């Protein structure tokens, strides 16, 4: 589980209304939601996500409601991985459950600059800033969360478990 991309930065306390504004919650197809990902922060962001690929956030990313639409919109908009100083609890769960990789790491927001080339090894919890030549070490996710992410989400994991695959 290695992801490469450029850093797209956002600040502290990015709430679920910024990630996917409430007026779009009637949409159910992930591609439709993706067209509005991060629109609450700035209207040009949905179109920029795919060329960057890695979201770098501050504290309390994903605070607010329990809407599963938020990680879904980011995932389908082309976010390969979200790095943040910290995540809001329900967003973190929903992201893993829907197969969006997330990694909590101190100083990601202060040390990484917008547009930096990044290489993230999710299994090891290692973030390399290729543009500036430094490495940050995060506490890696435990094995079963990595497994859920590898399979694409919690229900795929459930399927595998029930089928005797794990």
């Amino acid at each position, binding site marked *: 589980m290695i992801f490469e991309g450029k850093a797209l930065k956002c600040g502290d306390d990015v709430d679920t209304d910024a990630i996917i504004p409430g007026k779009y919650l009637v949409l159910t197809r992930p591609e439709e939601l993706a067209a509005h990902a991060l629109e609450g922060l700035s209207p040009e962001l949905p179109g920029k996500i795919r060329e960057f690929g890695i979201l770098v956030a501050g504290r309390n990313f994903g605070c607010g409601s329990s809407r599963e639409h938020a990680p879904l919109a980011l995932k389908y908009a082309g976010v390969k991985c979200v790095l943040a100083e910290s995540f809001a*609890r329900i967003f973190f769960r929903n992201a893993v459950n829907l197969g969006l990789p997330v990694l909590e790491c101190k100083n990601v927001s202060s040390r990484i600059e917008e547009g930096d080339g990044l290489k993230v090894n999710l299994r090891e919890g290692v973030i390399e800033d290729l543009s500036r030549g430094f490495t940050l070490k995060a506490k890696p996710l435990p094995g079963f969360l990595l497994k859920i992410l590898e399979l694409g989400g919690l*229900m795929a994991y*459930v*399927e595998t478990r*029930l089928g005797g695959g794990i």
Partner: protein
Amino acid sequence: MVKGQTIAEKILARASGLPKVEPGDFVEASVDLVMVNDITGPLTVKTIKALSKPRIWDPDRLVIVLDHQTPADRVQSAENHKLLRSFAAEFGVKALYDVGVGVCHQVVPEEGHVKPGMLIVGADSHTCTYGAFGAFATGVGSTDAAAALALGKLWFKVPESMLINVSGRFSRLVAGKDLILHILGRVGVEGASYMSVEFKGETVEALSVDSRMTLTNMAVEMGAKTGIIEPDVKTIQFLKEATGENSFQHIRSDPEASYAETLEFQVDGLEPQVAAPPSPANVKPAGEFSGVEIDQALLSSCTNARLEDLRVAAEILRGRQVKRDVRMVVIPASRKIYLKALEEGLIQVFVRAGAVVAPPGCGPCLGGHMGVLAEGEVCISSTNRNFTGRMGSPKARIYLASPATVAASALTGRITDPREVVP
């Protein structure tokens, strides 16, 4: 020396089959109970049915409560109810509480599903209420609930614990709701993010089970994962009646357990509290809002519509009339509470005072039905959230308060410290 563990850590360790856990650890734990309601349940059901071999690991560990849009307020709600009933029949789920039994967070403990030491997930953010019985209970999404049902297990991050120590005695007409609002005012809406909040101290010990449920219910308003209170004789008495069983797990935090934060609160002289819109942490003494005129007074919800709440409100309203041009809506939290309130003559007091008594359920608390607000209207409410648009129009305003303050305000037509009307 072995480090002590909190109740939350002990429950998560036991459910994960580990000797101990530390805050920040990720564990896969066996879930003792899953709860869904008529808002979150349909998506859980659809997710289960999308499995190649739809199954639930133990139908006796699922509780389904129809409480939000009940009785069905529109065709879509009726379809959701129908879907849940047929799912329960198909999968052998016996614990389906249909329209009118009550609000899920009252019904689940009242019907004996909660015991100390249990690990409970519910697809509803106020699931943390069950911590009043020494359980670890937390709100999750519909997909989480589906996975927990299919496997019997779910992953958790072990939370840090916050200890809230409360001492002192309440003044007359000041209650648990005033305390939790006061705590929220100091801790803030993110102050306990991801934490397990343990309420302790002489004041908490003196509280009834009804009031303790008000404290743990609103732990989520501080961002907490759960709220927990150590079980005592009062808890055991409640549990004996609810479950018909006689012995329960004895669970308490070790004296040397470590807390990320410890806060001290003193309730001597605490005045009735009110949270002004749009945040439950926007709290001041009720007296500071005495100029705010109201259109509706709502006594309902999983926060404050239990027997003790109905009693104090009825005492204030007895022989008096709700102010002209003010609507008062009373919704007992469960059918059992409704019946007891009838037997005690409380319902007659409400009806004679001019209040509307609606069937047990969530009612307008989250903007459902039976008392939603129009643009520009103001409601004083015994519920838990005063977010913009929560109870109908985004241009309505909701003030949160205790049942006594709600009843007093219904009499005067403005936000009123209950001690003003009960000299």
